[in-house]
C-alpha cells in the first residue's frame, strides 16, 4: 500500500502540473459562471434549473474528457518514457502500479469535481434568493435548492468519473498506441452513456438477432453511466431521491470500479514492458 500511495501522489502531482488539466478546469469554470448571463436563451425552463443543467453538463463533459485523456496520457507516458521500467524494477508489483496510477487520476478528478461543484453551488446559492423573491411576487412556488443534494450528486459524479477512468485504464492496459487507447475509451464512454438506448434496442422486436445480441452484450460488458444522472432530482427537487437508491448506485459504481481494475491488473500482468 505504501507504493500505491506514493505512485498515486506522484501521478496526481504530474497531472496537476499539466496545462491540459488547468485548461479544462478553467473552461468548465468559465462555462458554469457564464451560464448565469445566458439564461435569457433558456427556452422557457426555469433559470435555476438552466444554471444547474449547464453546470452538471460541464462537470460531466469536461470531467469525462479529463478522465479519458489523463488516464491514457499518464499511463502511456510511463511506458513511452520508460519511467515504468525504472519503477517496476523496484520492489513494486504491477498491481500497485495500476492502483497507484488509477488513484492518482481519481484524486485529480476529485479535485476537478470539487472545484466545479463548489462554483456551481456558489452560483446557485447566490441566484436562488433573488429568484425566490421574483417567484413570490408572481405568486409562483419558490424554487427549491438543496446544497446537500448537490454534494451527494458531486460524490456520485466523482464515482462516475472514477468508472470512466477505470474503464480507460483497462483499455489502455492492452493498447499499444496512445491514439487507439483514446479512441476505444471514448467509444466505451459513449456506449456506457447510451445504455438505456441499447437496452431498448436489445428488447425491441424490430431488431435483428445479431443487433439484439450485440446490444445485449454491450449492456452487459460496460457499465450504465446513465444511472448517475440524478442532478436535478437531488438538487432541485424537494422530494429528492430515496437513500436506498443512492446507496445502490454507490454500490453499483464501486463494484464496477473494482471489476475494471481487476481486469486491468490481469491484462497488465501479462504485458511485456
Amino acid at each position: 500500500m505504501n507504493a500505491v500511495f506514493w505512485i498515486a501522489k506522484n501521478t496526481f502531482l504530474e497531472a496537476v502540473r499539466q496545462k491540459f488539466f488547468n485548461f479544462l478546469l478553467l473552461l468548465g469554470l468559465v462555462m458554469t459562471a457564464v451560464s448565469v448571463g445566458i439564461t435569457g436563451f433558456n427556452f422557457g425552463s426555469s433559470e435555476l434549473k438552466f444554471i444547474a443543467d449547464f453546470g452538471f453538463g460541464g462537470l460531466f463533459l469536461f470531467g469525462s474528457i479529463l478522465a479519458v485523456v489523463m488516464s491514457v496520457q499518464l499511463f502511456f507516458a510511463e511506458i513511452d518514457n520508460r519511467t515504468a521500467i525504472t519503477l517496476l524494477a523496484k520492489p513494486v508489483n504491477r498491481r500497485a502500479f495500476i492502483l497507484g496510477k488509477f488513484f492518482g487520476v481519481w484524486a485529480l478528478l476529485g479535485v476537478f469535481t470539487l472545484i466545479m461543484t463548489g462554483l456551481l453551488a456558489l452560483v446557485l446559492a447566490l441566484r436562488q434568493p433573488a429568484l425566490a423573491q421574483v417567484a413570490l411576487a408572481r405568486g409562483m412556488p419558490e424554487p427549491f435548492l438543496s446544497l446537500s443534494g448537490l454534494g451527494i450528486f458531486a460524490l456520485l459524479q466523482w464515482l462516475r468519473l472514477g468508472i470512466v477512468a477505470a474503464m480507460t485504464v483497462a483499455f489502455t492496459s492492452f493498447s499499444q498506441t496512445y491514439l487507439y487507447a483514446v479512441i476505444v475509451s471514448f467509444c466505451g464512454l459513449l456506449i456506457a452513456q447510451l445504455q438505456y438506448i441499447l437496452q431498448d434496442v436489445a428488447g425491441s422486436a424490430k431488431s435483428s438477432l445479431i443487433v439484439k445480441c450485440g446490444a445485449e452484450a454491450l449492456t452487459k460488458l460496460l457499465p450504465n453511466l446513465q444511472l448517475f444522472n440524478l442532478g436535478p432530482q437531488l438538487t432541485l427537487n424537494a422530494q429528492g431521491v430515496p437513500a436506498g437508491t443512492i446507496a445502490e448506485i454507490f454500490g453499483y459504481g464501486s463494484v464496477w470500479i473494482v471489476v475494471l481494475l481487476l481486469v486491468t491488473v490481469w491484462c497488465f500482468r501479462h504485458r511485456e514492458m
Partner: protein
Amino acid sequence: MKTPSCENGCVPAIEISGLTKDFRIGIRGVKLRAVDNVSFRVNAGEIFGLLGPNGSGKSTTLKIILGLFRPTSGSCRIFGHESTETAARREVGFLPEAPYFYGYLSGRELVRFYARIAGVPAKQLDEAVEKALETTGMTEAADRRVKTYSKGMLQRIGVAQAIVHDPQLVILDEPTAGIDPVGSAEIGECILAMKKRGKTVVLCSHLLGQVENICDRIAIMNRGKLVVTGTLDNVLTRKDQTTLTISGLDAFSEKDFAELDAFLRARGATLDAVSHPRLSLEKFFIQNFSKDPQ
C-alpha cells in the same frame, strides 16, 4: 582484479539457468528467439560485465533479471528468489539505458520518491537521499528540476536513484552513455566504491576499456546466445603465447630461455617478468563479434 571467493557455498547474486525468451511478432505470430538457452551466475560482491553487440539479447536478459519479462523457459534467480517475485527486487537497484525521469520533480524529490517506493523507512529517508546524491556528485544540482539536467547529470541522478535504498545488487545499463571521460571515470570510481562496500554490480557498457578496468568477470552474448563467460584473464589471455619483458636487451628467444637467462646475467641484464600477451577487451570484441555476412 581478483574475483571474490564466492564460487561455491554462498547464494549467488544472480543465477541464470537455461534461460530462453521467445517473442511473437507480427499478425502471424512469428517466433523470434531473443535469448537462447543462456546460463551464467554472478557471484555476490563482484563486478560483472554483460557485453554483446546490439541485438545480442543483453537488454532482454536484463529485463528478465528485473522481472519485467517472463522467461519462456529456464530460470532466473536473484539472491535465491525467482526474478518474477517482487521480493527479488528488494535488494536490486537499476539504472536503465538512456534514463528518463519525471522532469517536473527536482533531483532531490526524484531520489526521495524512488527511496520511498523502494521502502526506505521514513526515519532514514533524508540520510539515504543525501548519501546517494553525495556519492554521485549531485548534491549541488539536487534542487534543480530534472528537466533542466544535462545528459550526464541524468545518468548521475539515475545512479543515485538506483543506490538510494542501499541495494546489494546494482544493475547499470550503459551508465556512462553521454558522459564525458572525466564523468565516466567518476562513475567508474563510484562502481569500485560499491564493490568495496560489498555490493554486486552488473555492468552493461560499450566502453570496453572501462569494463576491462573494473570488471571481475564478464559474459559476452551474441545473437541471443552466451558466447563467452569467465574472468577477464581467462577470456583475454592467450595461453599459446608468451611475452618476456626484458630490461636492457632487445632480443628474445623462447627455446633458449635458460641460456638467455644466463646470457642476461652474464651481461648484467635481468629478466623482470614473463607473462602471456593479452588482447585488449576492445580488440577481442571487434575480432569476435564484428558484423559479417555469416
